[in-house]
């Protein structure tokens, strides 16, 4: 008899709206406490103190329009948030301030989440949906200068980009962009040439979310159908389907690979969070708590593996926090810490 799946460690309530996006910031040293940012459909960004499990600050900068992407930039003091009012805002949260210091107008009406990649100290690349429907624009931050615009050729017709993931094989090398499109394909872009390196039609339905493990050159994508696909990138920069997993219920809103590349979490439209082993896509757990579609999952970046949490935000206005598969033995603990990316 397998053990029954665990219950959430705790649940954050009080957003009073659907939770669309979550982002942890736990890297700070004492006395900084771990933080969880959540963006919800009423345009508010909640900053949760994970120590007291209470809301620290509420940021209102998207005019009541849904917030669907938040990410901390440069520690905990700067925050990027993207909302469906077509603005990407840069927040200054240092010393108790909460003001929008800068913003970018995306000219895009979709709900494709942007992607951020740190390329050098104080320099970031941000991929965001562009002005044309099928276009992705990459900006350099903080200067907001456009690096390139990635537009598929006219006959490719992949539809709108649905999800983006910027990555680079090694720090300092040329970055790539993985984008999932409306027609179910995943496209690998080379930023320097603005060219498609590989295109993989891995879903019948729009790709809702993808995540990529740059060490193993292997990624995962979920769509509105009941299939989870794992694909890999070979030496010739070709994407290939490696494995698919059929789910019981259709629809995956979000996928996330944990930083230690051990497990993968998916947010299901069937109210359930699924945990898989990342190496072989072995199903490990079904976390059943939410009473409505789960919109997003996110792993915390706690420096100690045993503290690592999984958060899931749902349409039922709740954020559930789980502690799962994070008990490691001593030896492993150390080696994992040394291997920790970034």
């Amino acid at each position, binding site marked *: 008899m*397998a*053990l*029954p799946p665990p219950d959430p460690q705790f649940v954050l309530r009080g957003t009073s709206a659907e939770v669309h996006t979550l982002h942890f910031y736990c890297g700070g040293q004492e006395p900084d406490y771990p933080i969880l940012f959540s963006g919800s459909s009423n345009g508010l960004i909640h900053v949760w103190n994970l120590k007291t499990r209470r809301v620290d600050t509420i940021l209102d900068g998207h005019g009541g329009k849904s917030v669907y992407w938040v990410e901390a930039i440069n520690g905990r003091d700067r925050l990027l948030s993207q909302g469906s009012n077509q603005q990407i805002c840069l927040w200054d949260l240092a010393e108790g301030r909460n003001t929008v210091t800068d913003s970018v107008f995306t000219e895009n009406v979709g709900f494709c989440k942007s992607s951020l990649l740190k390329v050098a100290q104080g320099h970031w690349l941000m991929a965001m949906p562009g002005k044309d429907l099928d276009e992705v624009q990459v900006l350099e931050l903080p200067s907001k200068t456009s690096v390139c615009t990635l537009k598929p050729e006219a006959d490719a017709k992949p539809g709108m980009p649905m999800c983006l993931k910027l990555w680079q094989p090694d720090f300092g090398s040329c970055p790539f962009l993985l984008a999932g499109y409306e027609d179910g394909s995943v496209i690998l872009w080379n930023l320097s040439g603005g060219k498609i390196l590989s295109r993989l039609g891995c879903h019948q339905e729009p790709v809702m979310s993808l995540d990529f493990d740059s060490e193993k050159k292997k990624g995962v994508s979920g769509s509105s159908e009941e299939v989870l696909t794992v694909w890999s990138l070979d030496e010739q920069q070709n994407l290939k389907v490696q494995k698919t997993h059929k789910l*019981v219920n259709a629809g995956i809103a979000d996928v996330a690979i944990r930083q230690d590349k051990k497990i993968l979490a998916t947010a299901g439209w069937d109210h359930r969070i699924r945990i898989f082993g990342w190496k*072989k896509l*072995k199903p490990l*757990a079904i976390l059943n708590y939410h009473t409505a579609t789960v919109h997003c999952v996110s792993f915390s970046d706690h420096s100690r593996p045993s503290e690592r949490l999984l958060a899931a935000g749902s349409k039922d206005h709740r954020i559930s926090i789980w502690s799962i598969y*994070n*008990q490691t033995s001593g030896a492993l603990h150390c080696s*994992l810490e040394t291997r920790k990316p970034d």
Partner: protein
Amino acid sequence: MDPEPFEVGHVVREAINILSSSRNGVQISEALGTIKCYLGGTENQAPLKEREEFTRVHFSAFLRGLVSNLSPDWIELLTSDQQKELWDSFFLEGPADQVFLVLLDSIISMGPSFCLMKVISILEQFLQTGGMSALMWEVCHQQAQAGLPTFQETLLNKVVCLPDHLCNKLQGNNLPIFFPQNYFPLLATEIIQVLQRISDSLRDGLDCSISFVSQVLGKVCMHGRREEILKVLVPRLMDLTKVDCIWQRICWRLVECVPDRWIEAVVCGFVQKAPGADVLSRLLGNLVVKNKKAQFVVTQKLLLQQYSYATAVLQNLLGYLALDSLRRYLLIKVLKELLETWGSSSAVKHSPVEQQLYVSKAILICLSHLKEPEIESNGQELLTSMMGGMKCHLDSNLPRVRRLGMIVAESISSRITTDGPCLKFQVRLHRNDSPSATPTAVSKPSGNPHPAAPAVPEEGSDLELDSDDDLIPYDMSEDKELKKMKVPVYIRDCIEVLTGSEDMDKWEATMKVLESLIRRNSATTREVSMELAKVLLHLEEKTYIEGFVELRKRALVAVTITDAVVQYLTSQFYSLNYSLCQRMDILDVLALAAQELSQPQASGKNKPRSTQSPCIQTVPGSDSSQNWRRIVDERIKSKTRRLAKGQSLVEPACGPNKFSSLAGHFFFPLIQNFDRPLVTFDLLGDDHLVLGRLAHTLAILMYFAIHTVAAAAMGKSLLEFVWALRFHTDSYVRQGLLSAVSSILLSVPSERLLEDMTDEFLETQSWLADVAEKDPDGDCRRLAWQNLLLMENLLKKLRSVPS
């Protein structure tokens, strides 16, 4: 006339005279020494003829003389060495049978005195020095030359009853060696010694009679000491007979020679004590073939009349029958008789379940011993009796009996059908009910509990080896397809779905939500209650839903509570065109509703259906012993409440008893028509299962009607109901009736009970006494006892509060 006998007698008389008159130690010791010569064993012994003469004729008399002269000052005339040499030795070296008789006779006749103590210590020494084996040997020896029957009879009595005599005489001062638990094992070792001597003498070619030993054994067993004696005897015999065929013969002879009137006790003892069938076969030989009485005991009494023995005993017994070709015909005979009993509907109805279990075990063991040709030649017969037996077992109302029937039938069928399909029931074996002779391995809980479940196990430094296999998955059985069905929000919608909809998902969702809807919207429910009740009562499980029966029942209960559709339900119980299942559902719903109504309402929303076990009732096929336990529990609970009235007063939840005004509506329509058979429904005939349920339900209703106005009237008519059915053959019905009596005793005010229903009360009491004593069903007997106790308490209470 021979001068010599005269001479011996003269000498003895003279010696006795000296002993009784002289106060001179030297003279006495001389006299004793003279007599001692006749015993032999010393240097100057008397001639053989005189010795024989002495032992045969004068020894007992002389011993008596010795004992009668015994007194403290007399014995002091002799030195202690002389005492030992001259006095004691007569007892310890003389012919044991006579010594033993004289000793016991003197003990019996003497009052407490110094003399008695001396005799007893001699007897103790006698026992310790192997006197008993000498005694038995002597008798066996004599028997070969035709001894005296009366003398033997006396001796036998004394040998077997020695502990009783001494216990009577000595009371609290008894010596441990005379305790039965010590004496009989001693006797057993002595018996072995005698047998040893007999075997030696047989080897020397001398004849020997064993019958006295057999008699001792038989009488001891008959006196209820077989445990003590066989505990020692059987293991020794088992060892001795292992290799030696003479010993085997002796052992067989030993058992065969036991007189018929005692053979039962001996055989039973051997069967119980032998550690295995082969040992038993070695010890008993073909006794069952030779001795009619033993055969009767083995094939009838132990198997069909008694049922208290352990399974191991059955295995011994039947294994013993199977081991020898001469006895095998008995095995088949036994099997047929067992099957006859098993298949007799009267036996199924009237014999206790424990006995049926015993018989079933015996059948299974027999089956396992049968060989292919035997099965083939008896196959048809087995099949016929199996079919008959199965039918009457499946007819029974007791799930345990049904299950037993199914298990036995399955085993028979799998034995007799070598090819082709055999009978298969979907029986869930209950461990303690399984009659299987060799209990099959209990299925171990599969899988191992994870030591530290969600942990990533240690895997050394080589991280490249890490794999998902280290992560132990959680239980994922809950991962089912998500139903995206819109759940109905209004009761009217529910009715529509339940009556018309072909959409199974919707239907299922409706079932699941119905109860809470009804409870939430009592106003709407009242408007449609009748329709809803009708729909629910006729509802069939269109598609499989987990816990459908329960859901439907709860919904019905909810309707019944919200609005009085009781009349409808009670009237439907006796109307045409319902299945038994529906009728029983009605009963269950009424009982549950009564329970909920009678609970104080203040205790809130999450109430009884969860606290009280939801199986007040059983769906056909489910377990009625559950039901059972519930009723007993209920009674216990009610009793505790009565005893601890102080507590129940403190109970915060209180409110008007809603059941009070409705109790009559629940009760009377149900009790009215039970004796009017319909075309499809005959409570007093075949449908005794429903009758049993009706009786239980009435008992429950009565119980919940405590403190209501109608209670007295209900009690009276329920007593009449009980009276009319008291001799029902089905034990489940009788159990229901007995529960009803308990409820009456608990719920009807005692003054009403004793004043208005005195006759009924007394009649019931005498019936209960009868049941408590004679009913074949253990549960019935227990219930009857409880009822009698309740009655006793009532009467006592009434007497202690004189009006």
